[in-house]
Structures are given as structure tokens and as C-alpha cells.
């Protein structure tokens, strides 16, 4: 894989995606806010969210290391007490690793099933993508499960551009629970 983009050569920037629904609308209608950065994230709570969406639970110490070495994190926090969430509870999450200048990969996009279908996944991805684009990173990638490929295409992601294929090294050994084994989906 190599950078063949004019933007990379010129050091220019792609156009960021529009934010289709502003923060204020989410605050007013759903009582949630978007938080940037890993400060305030409780690893056990993050693991609970992963479990709810069917991701493997991770070893908490390794999850902490992963967060510390992630380029950008955006999460969704409930701003009020309701029957669906405690005040301050994490209900959505997304992160991206990167070298900070040339390429980035999005991982672990998760929205609490009770809060799905309310635009939070799209909102997370718009904001995360916008941040990466505005930081000048020309190659922004992700690995999408078949059922969400369409969602990401609507956001402006393209699958297999020019026949480029996403690949993963196949582990044969059975993963320990919480080791974060198989290809982590978005």
C-alpha cells in the first residue's frame, strides 16, 4: 500500500465531511454530548459497551495501553439520568490510530444497542473523520463488517478503491478471552 494521492504529494488537505446534525440537536433531543479525548473514560465501562455490541471484552490493562496509544478518541456521554442511561454514562465510542501525518485507521465504533438507530453512529464517524481530515491526514481507513459497509459508503468511505483489498493476518491459535483476537470490526 502506498500513497498515490495528489494530496499526499502536495501535502494538501481533503475536504472534511459535513456535520449533518449539530451537537446542540443531540443534546436537546437525546440528552447526550460528544466528548473528545480519553480523559474521563473508565475502562470497565468501555468494556461493558464492547460487550453489549458483541465485541470481545479486552484485558483492562491492555485496553488502557491501547487508549494511551490511540491518536484520537470520540465518545458519547449521557448528560442526564434516564431509564436508558445513568448521568455521565458512555453510550457510544470510536477511535482511530495514526502516525499523525500520513495515515489513520478507525477502530471499535460502538453504540449501545438501546441507543442505536438515532444517528449516533453516523454522528461519531462524521466528527472523527472530520478531525482526521482537518489534521491533514490524507489516508483514512477502516475495516467494515458487511452489514455496515453501506453506512460508511453513505458517509463517503469507499470500499476496495482501485482494487485495493483490506487484509488481516490469520491467527490459528485460539485467542484467550479479552486478548482482542479476531479482526476487530468497526
Amino acid at each position, binding site marked *: *500500500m502506498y500513497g498515490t494521492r*495528489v494530496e499526499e504529494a502536495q501535502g494538501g488537505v481533503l475536504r472534511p465531511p459535513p456535520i449533518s446534525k449539530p451537537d446542540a440537536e443531540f443534546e436537546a433531543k437525546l440528552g447526550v454530548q460528544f466528548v473528545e479525548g480519553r480523559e474521563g473514560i473508565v475502562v470497565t465501562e468501555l468494556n461493558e459497551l464492547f460487550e453489549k455490541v458483541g465485541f470481545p471484552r479486552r484485558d483492562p490493562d491492555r485496553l488502557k495501553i491501547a487508549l494511551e496509544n490511540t491518536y484520537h478518541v470520540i465518545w458519547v456521554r449521557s448528560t442526564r439520568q434516564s431509564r436508558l442511561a445513568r448521568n455521565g454514562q458512555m453510550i457510544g465510542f470510536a477511535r482511530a490510530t495514526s502516525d499523525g*501525518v500520513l495515515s489513520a485507521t478507525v*477502530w471499535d465504533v460502538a453504540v449501545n444497542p438501546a441507543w442505536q438507530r438515532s444517528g449516533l453512529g453516523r454522528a461519531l464517524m462524521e466528527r472523527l473523520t472530520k478531525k482526521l481530515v482537518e489534521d491533514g491526514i490524507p489516508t483514512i481507513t477502516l475495516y467494515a463488517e458487511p452489514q455496515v459497509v453501506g453506512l460508511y459508503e453513505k458517509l*463517503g468511505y469507499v470500499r*476496495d478503491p482501485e482494487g485495493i483489498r483490506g*487484509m*488481516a*493476518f*490469520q491467527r490459528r491459535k485460539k485467542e484467550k478471552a479479552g486478548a482482542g483476537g479476531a479482526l476487530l470490526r468497526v
Partner: protein
Amino acid sequence: MASMALRSTATSLQCRASTPGLQPVLASCPLAHPRLRAAPYQPAEGPTCSSRNVSCHGFLGGLFGGKGGSAPAKQPAKPSLEDNLGPDVDELLLLESGQPDGSKAEIIYRNGGPVAAADLEQLCTKVGWPARPLAKVEAALRNSFMVSSLVLRVSLPDPTAPPPASPEQAPAMLVSEQLIGLARATSDHAFNATIWDVLVDPEYQGQGLGKALVEQMVRSLLRKDISNITLFADSKVVDFYKQMGFEADPEGIKGMFWYPRF
């Protein structure tokens, strides 16, 4: 593996115009021929090279045509890289070629050694990739979790040094290094890694060096317990990575790019 005592080696010289005295010598050096012989396979006896933390193990025979090596007669299904993670070393000798006067050329896999952005960009230009801003390349290397390189190291007798005092003493050598391949990986240091920028100098392609580079990088990542190793492969090299144990679209999962413009 004969341990070549390198006496009074100069500090590593870069093969660049800044060392004009060395360049003409290298240009005519027969050791610079791209088709270096594979180092004869040695059973694992422990490192014998004098360099820091270098393993002089030969290669698993399968990497260079399947002959030789100590692969067991009974083999299960195709072995995976994870079955043989290898020793935890920073450098691995891949190929070498020597002369009676002590001259030699070595191709080394090096994990984590410093790579100059300018050398990398020079290599990128050689393989036909568009140039990238040096400052960005520098930052990308610095912020990568792992940078693995292929280095051509040429050792020649130092023409300015006095001859050895006794026949047993090895001649003083001048050592130079040239970047001939690279791969780097970004990672969260815990679960996922993505491999980028895999390239081998066209002069040295066709000898299995790209395969060696990627395989050693995968081993290095596995030793660090990074269990999800990913990459994005041009359609022309999908099979190259498949042979090493990578799978395209595993479980139907698709690689996607945001608004690529090629």
C-alpha cells in the same frame, strides 16, 4: 557462520554523494551485484555475530526456494509464522557474499534502527511513488510503532589503513550501509497494527527480500502480542500477502478509504 572480526571499522558511512571517496569504489565493487547468494542455512546455535543483538541464523529453507533448511520430514498443514516466532533480536542476517580479501556484502533485516526520511524518500522515488514532504515522512517514521528495514551493508578493506601486523589479524574495514527496503506499522501498542509503505529497491527485488521483510515484521509484531495485524494491498500483491498468511476480506469484512482520489 565464520565470525568476521571487523577491526577498526569506521563509523557507518552512508552511501551518498557526501562520501565521494567511497562511492566510486562501491560502484565498481563486485559485491554490489544484486544477486547475492543466500547465506548457507545454519542450525540454530545461538548468535555468533559480533554486532549488537544480531542473530546469524540462516533462513528457513522455504523462503529461498524450499531447498535445505531443517524443516521436519513430517509436516502438519502449512506452518504459520506464529508457529516460529524466532528469537527476539533487532537484526537478522538474510544474505551475504564474501571475498577472500575480507570484503563482504550483507543484507540485513533491522527492526527499529534509525531510518533517515531522506533515504526512505529516495527509495520511494526509485520504486516510482510520488514524493512526499520530508517533514511528514520524518514524523510518520517517528510516530510509527515499528519501522523495519532492509539494509545493504558493504565492508571493504580500508585502503588508507596500514596492512595488518600479522597474517592472523583481519584487515581494517570500511563499512557502509544503504537502505534497500522498508516496512512500517502503526499500532495502538496493544491490539491492532496496520502495515504501510512496504517497498524493496528494484535492484534487489526478485530474491524473496520483500517476503522476508514482511514475515519478520509480522513475527516482531506477534512477539509483542499484537494479535490483529492488518494492511491494505494493491490487487497485484494480494497473492503475495496471502502466501504469508494474510487473508483478504476475512469474514466479509471490507477495507474502506475515505474519499480516495487516485
